[in-house]
């Protein structure tokens, strides 16, 4: 049987196909205008997941590059300072060589002593250089300048109670510090209560890792030992110790160095954490069996002042050793900078790969889009042409 075709069917069919073509045309237009294949999530859900991954990667790379730029600036500043320090030491060596000969007199040695004094002051200002407001050679102890002008004897700072502590009694430190590096000790209360019942734990590395919890009666006498000759005494107070009460004790080894020589780190890639600072001890000595630059300069100055030829010559070897020490630190900086450069190059490659992947996933193929657009245009024109013909072929045209 022949299907009846009614007016409504003609209009509906024409309308539906027109709407269909128009929506496809619109979708192609949107892709063409944005030059993106994926404009909304539903355009390609799987592709969108990949895109999010690429974008996260790209954002991380940008941050890593910023970190590299920041720490590279720090490193090149460090390098400059270390080179200048090397120059100063060479000058000091020249003076020592010159004044170590028999031709030198007490007068020339006194003038040289003044020179050495100035060299040491310059050296001090180099060693206390800052990048922004941060000391280059302090490690992570930024509160005080890393090097003092005169050699300090071993000391223990008064304990500092954290602002949030409940305990309001006094805490005093006593004893003689025996270690050869500066350290920050931390005492944290694990179980609160009176001195007789409270327990505590000790950290010898400024609070990063902690020893085991003490026995309940250990604090009964009010005095505990932290190690390396430090004793801590708790006394008095209206409020008892509470969980989390924190006490900080800074201990200083003898010498010029006040910093802690800790590594400063940054991430320059996924899981690639790199230390970008040179500790003051590595470059300028102090503890760990290294030779202290400032002590050498002070000793040289003393020998020059006292016209002590043997004393002057004795510092020649030391001067060579500290010069090597500074050079070694500078070469370490150079190596780190190289690593940064390589990492930066790698990140650039990675970034380009990601950009490539991103554009492959979300980018539109303009050639095929243009072709599609032309096709859709044709289809649209055809459907308009068809629609305009619906009314023109009826029997009404043939009856008078």
């Amino acid at each position, binding site marked *: 049987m022949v299907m009846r075709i009614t007016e409504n069917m003609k209009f509906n069919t024409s309308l539906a196909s027109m709407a269909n073509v128009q929506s496809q045309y619109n979708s192609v237009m949107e892709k063409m205008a944005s030059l993106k294949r994926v404009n909304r999530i539903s355009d390609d859900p799987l592709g969108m997941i990949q895109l999010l991954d690429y974008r996260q990667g790209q954002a991380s790379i940008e*941050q890593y590059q910023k970190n590299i730029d920041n720490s590279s600036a720090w490193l090149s500043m460090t390098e400059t300072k270390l080179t200048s320090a090397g120059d100063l030491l060479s000058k000091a060596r020249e003076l020592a060589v010159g004044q170590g000969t028999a031709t030198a007199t007490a007068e020339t040695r006194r003038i040289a002593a003044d020179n050495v004094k100035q060299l040491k002051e310059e050296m001090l200002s180099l060693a206390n250089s800052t990048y922004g407001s941060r000391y280059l050679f302090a490690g992570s102890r930024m509160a005080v300048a890393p090097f003092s002008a005169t050699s300090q004897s071993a000391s223990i700072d008064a304990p500092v109670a954290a602002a949030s502590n409940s305990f309001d009694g006094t805490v005093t430190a006593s004893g003689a510090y025996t270690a050869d590096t500066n350290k920050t000790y931390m005492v944290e209360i694990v179980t609160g209560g009176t001195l007789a019942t409270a327990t505590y734990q000790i950290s010898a590395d400024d609070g990063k890792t902690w020893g085991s919890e003490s026995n309940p009666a250990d604090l009964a006498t009010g005095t505990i030992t932290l190690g390396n000759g430090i004793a801590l005494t708790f006394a008095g107070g209206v409020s008892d110790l509470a969980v989390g009460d924190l006490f900080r004790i800074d201990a200083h080894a003898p010498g010029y160095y006040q910093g802690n020589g800790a590594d400063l780190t940054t991430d320059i890639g996924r899981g690639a954490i790199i230390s970008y600072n040179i500790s003051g001890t590595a470059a300028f000595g102090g503890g760990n069996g290294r030779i202290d630059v400032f002590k050498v300069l002070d000793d040289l100055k003393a020998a020059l002042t006292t016209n002590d030829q043997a004393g002057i010559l004795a510092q020649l070897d030391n001067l060579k050793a500290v010069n090597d020490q500074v050079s070694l630190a500078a070469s370490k900086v150079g190596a780190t900078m190289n690593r940064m450069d390589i990492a930066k190059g790698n990140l650039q490659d990675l970034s380009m790969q990601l950009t490539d992947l991103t554009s492959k996933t979300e980018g539109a193929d303009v050639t095929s889009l243009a072709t599609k657009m032309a096709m859709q245009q044709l289809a649209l024109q055809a459907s308009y042409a068809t629609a305009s013909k619906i009314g023109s072929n009826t029997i009404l045209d043939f009856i008078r």
Partner: protein
Amino acid sequence: MSLNGLLNTSYNSLQGFQFAIDLTGANIANVNTPGYSRQRTVFQSEGTVDVASVQAQVGVQVSGVERIYDAYLSNQVVNQSQMVGYSQAKSDVLDRIEGIFAENGGAASDMMNRFWNAWSGLATNPQGQLERENVLAAAQDMTAKFRGLDSALSGLVQDTDDNINNTIAQVNDYLKQIADLNKTIVANGAQDSGNSNILQDRRSELLKQLSGLVDMNYVEDRNGAVNVFLANGKPLILETNIYSLDVTHPNGLIAVVYLNDQNDNLNQALSQGGKGKMAALLETANTIVPDYKEKLNALAAAIIAEVNNQHQAGYDNDGSRGSDFFTSAAEARNFQVSAAVSSNVNKIAASASVNGDGDNALALGAIKDKAAMGGGTVTINDSYASLIGLIGRDVVNAKSSLDHQTSIMDQLSNRREATSGVSLDEEMMNLMKYQMAYNASGKLVTTANQMMDTLMGLVK
């Protein structure tokens, strides 16, 4: 046969053809009326032929008006409009959800990336106020984005609630109209010759509209009334009685109930078949949006737990132990930076030691690469990405289902049109046909008149 009889026959046929032309006019007038079924005049010959007495009086009479209609097809259309109603409503909702999560500039994923990277930036300058402010700003932007997503989803549920209320009002209105039509159709009688045709068309159209809204079945009883039932067999209309629907909110969810029995939850019956707009709306309010919300909450909770945990392991700029970075919470709507941190950026615990290194900030930034979700299998960002992927797939599925159902509906509508629709060409032909017959009948009257004149002339 008498001349009077001939005149009478002519009169009947004139009347009959005029009726047919009137009906053709009605068809033409309703060519664009949705649900209108074309009507056809049913002619019936009447009278007798008696050759013996030279008598032939055969005329025509209009015995009824036939409504060209296919009940089976009509049933299919009703059924399909349930599928379309469901797909349409679901697709609309998912479109809106897709818009809420749109991955353009300022999306949650960008905010999360910025947040993680701000920590890495802080690590290179742990005491820097600028870097600290940057971490705080990134955290505040990210939490605001999460809260915004949550509130947009809540808004969607609210809108859906309004939509359900409106739909219920519409359903109740349709029920009343159908029951009223039932009443008139039953009063006209089951053996009606055409008086109820228009009413039946209107009722079919109403049933089609109603079926787009709710999952229902209908049966026509022998009196001509339709009884409408829900998918679980509970009634909506029995003859002229209507069972109106209402909306309640038990435990924060949305439930459709009878107006007269507020404890009879009809959600299951309305949504089990995935038919009708109401099924999609109930699914949206009670399942789809809550599911997405739950995933968003899980993300927020994971970020809060991981960041707080690592933050507490570090030391702030004043040498105190790190506190909570985010206010402890399990929902995205309560996701915010803790008051202690937001009022003082020095409370950000960037350092792993009481001296100011940046190692804890590094550890916080590294959470982005940690498999912190899904029982330690995926990272937080990946988990977010799979939520986006899920939304994308849902939208794609809903769209293709809508396309599919709509094209079936178009097909069925065309088939219904082929049977019941008005063709103007056909009506034109009918018009010519009936006009010619009318003209011929008129000629018959003239002829009878002339015959009468001839007869009168004989008498003169």
